């Protein structure tokens, strides 16, 4: 019995040691398994995060919607590149990166169609809106179809190791409810900058005011110095223009695509926070991945990403132009018999002063059989003048609305952020000294356009098409789609270059010419009409300025009875 007890005691020590060793092994192996599990979870999450960021980045480019050759679709071709530079031609694809440009151009057309002389431009603006909406809806459909995004996820998620799950494992798409979209940063800025600010009325056309609800400052805190004072179109807010609601996708200025937490993502989903945009284009995406190894599923993970293209454009119709036409110059003759009557002839003149004499008027005036006006040097109103002086120069007239139209259209040609076309900039473009030579050479048509989306040019047709050969020749013959209205009606002033001349009327019998100058005098007036034909930009033509200049020679021939 005693021997058995001793043996038992010795065996219990051995058994205890064995149990301890086993326990240690089990605990150790358990610890390792937990470490591997947690490591696997972390690796899966990391791979899923990388995949989500890839989705946030790549989704800016694809999926996309291809424009069709139809006119209302083709109008947005100039919005299908990623550059503000007009010389870079697009590829016809509308994607998340470009959809705001499309909406912005449709908005520009609608703004221009708000003019009372929009004419067929109103219908064009409706077509552009419907086309933009259709493109946007198609894009939204593609972006909310998760299978279109799966490839972007897998490209990066599979490139990241999940070796703790097992040899040969990789994080792949887990299709299903984990793939959602959201509309984050509501009312934040889009990547479309407005020209100017509220003090300049955003350089809108005369008679149109951009609703204050359309514009916003950058919503980053603090606002970066580079864009202090810059206004943007508001994202995920209805932009009401001309009976239509235009939309923008918010992209905070220069924000990088980044991961976000599920809380704000879920709170911004349409189901949680409805929006009147029937098919909104989402800017945030959730993904779900699962690490799989041959024969088994390891871990799953979710990520949420907010996308951003990180480059801005201006509210613009990029491939567009404005035409300036100068009518033939006319010299008109007037006589006072005693009421003012036009002479029998109207003569053309050009940009070189020429001595002209009008046809003899019969009768010539009070007590006068006839009056032959003296010769005047005609053409001094235009000689040596640039196009700017031809349009805006003496006789000036009220140029306020004309200038507003032209400055608004000039800004609409500019896509480069931060570039603002002020009235003085426009004048300096029109004041190009070469226009003097072109006018002298008989050129009547000039085109204002931007070859690079940043600067303006004013050139005759032959040079203009050469400067923007890839797009301007295709649209330069398009007429403005609105109606013409006279903005400056017979602005006139006495010629600064012609001194009044005495006249010599032929008197009737028993009459003799009155003294020269008082009242027998002939003087020259400079006259100007300026017309504006509204263009929406639907066909590329943003409007036409027509300048009509003429000189009037007024002659008085009075004869008095011989006493």
């Amino acid at each position: 019995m005693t021997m058995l007890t001793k043996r038992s005691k010795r065996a219990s020590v051995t058994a205890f040691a064995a149990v301890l060793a086993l326990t240690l092994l089990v605990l150790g192996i358990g610890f390792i398994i937990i470490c591997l599990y947690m490591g696997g979870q972390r690796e899966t999450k990391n791979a899923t995060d990388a995949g989500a960021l890839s989705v946030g980045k790549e989704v800016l480019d694809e999926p996309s919607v291809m424009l069709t050759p139809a006119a209302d679709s083709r109008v947005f071709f100039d919005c299908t590149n990623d550059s503000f530079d007009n010389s870079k031609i697009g590829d016809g694809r509308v994607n998340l990166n470009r959809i705001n440009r499309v909406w912005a151009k449709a908005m520009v057309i609608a703004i221009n169609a708000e003019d009372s002389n929009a004419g067929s431009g109103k219908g064009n603006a409706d077509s552009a809106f419907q086309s933009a909406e259709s493109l946007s809806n198609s894009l939204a459909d593609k972006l909310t179809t998760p299978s279109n995004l799966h490839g972007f996820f897998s490209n990066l998620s599979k490139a990241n190791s999940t070796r703790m799950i097992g040899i040969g494992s990789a994080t792949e798409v887990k299709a299903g409810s984990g793939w959602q979209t959201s509309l984050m940063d509501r009312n934040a800025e889009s990547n479309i900058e407005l020209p100017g600010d509220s003090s300049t009325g955003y350089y809108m056309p005369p008679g149109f005011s951009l609703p204050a609800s359309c514009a916003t400052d950058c919503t980053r805190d603090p606002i970066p110095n580079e864009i202090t004072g810059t206004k943007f179109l508001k994202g995920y807010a209805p932009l009401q223009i001309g009976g239509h609601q235009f939309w923008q996708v918010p992209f905070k200025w220069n924000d990088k695509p980044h991961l976000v937490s599920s809380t704000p993502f879920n709170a911004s989903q349409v189901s949680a926070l409805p929006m009147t945009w029937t098919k909104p284009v989402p800017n945030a995406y959730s993904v779900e991945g699962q690490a799989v190894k041959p024969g088994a599923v390891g871990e799953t993970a979710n990520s949420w990403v907010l996308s951003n293209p990180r480059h801005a454009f201006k509210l613009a119709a990029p491939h567009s132009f404005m035409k300036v036409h100068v009518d033939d110059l006319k010299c008109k003759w007037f006589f006072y018999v005693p009421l003012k009557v036009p002479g029998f002839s109207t003569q053309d003149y050009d940009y070189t002063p020429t001595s002209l004499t009008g046809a003899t008027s019969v009768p010539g005036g009070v007590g006068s059989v006839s009056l032959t006006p003296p010769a005047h040097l005609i053409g001094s109103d235009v000689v040596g003048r640039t196009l700017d002086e031809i349009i805006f120069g003496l006789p000036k007239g009220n140029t306020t609305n004309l200038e507003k139209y032209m400055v608004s259209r000039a800004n609409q040609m500019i896509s480069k952020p931060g570039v603002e076309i002020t009235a003085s900039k426009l004048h300096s473009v029109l004041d190009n000294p070469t226009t003097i030579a072109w006018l002298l050479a008989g050129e009547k048509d000039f085109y204002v356009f931007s070859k690079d989306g940043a600067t303006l040019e004013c050139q005759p047709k032959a040079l203009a098409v050469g400067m923007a050969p890839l797009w301007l020749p295709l649209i330069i013959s398009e007429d403005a789609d609105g109606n013409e209205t006279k903005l400056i009606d017979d602005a006139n002033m006495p010629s600064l270059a012609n001194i009044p001349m005495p006249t010599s009327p032929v008197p009737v019998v028993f009459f003799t010419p009155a003294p020269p100058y008082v009242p027998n005098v002939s003087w020259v007036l400079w006259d100007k009409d300026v017309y504006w034909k509204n263009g929406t930009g639907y066909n590329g033509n943003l409007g036409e300025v027509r300048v009509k200049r003429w000189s009037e020679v007024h002659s008085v021939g009075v004869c008095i009875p011989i006493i």
Partner: protein
Amino acid sequence: MHHNSNKSRSRRGSGLIEAILAATVLVPIALFLLDLTVMIIANSMNDTAAKNAARAAANQPEGGAAHAAAVKALATFQASSIVKSLTISEFDYPAQGVGSVSVVTVMEVKLPVPVPGFSGYTFKAGDVEPIVGSTIAQ
């Protein structure tokens, strides 16, 4: 009495032998588990380091800045008697800043309980991240 003393010594001796035998099993197991734990933690640290370096690089607009950011991301690493070093062994940032950046980090680990012929291990971890710091050329 003498007989009892011999028995007692015998008991103590056999207990000691059992304890030594048990220890020869338990101690290596414990030390092996310690080494394994260190390796798992070191591997995890290296994975995190690669991830952080790649993320930092992905936020930069061009290669030079990206490499500097990746190096900076590892700057907080402190070498110790166990984790000897942590360096970037491979770095790939596309010239145009389009696509993804990949970073491979190498961590040298010395085992706390060296095993003959296996006193340390060099861990290698890679991470690939989409470049979000570059902008589309305008």
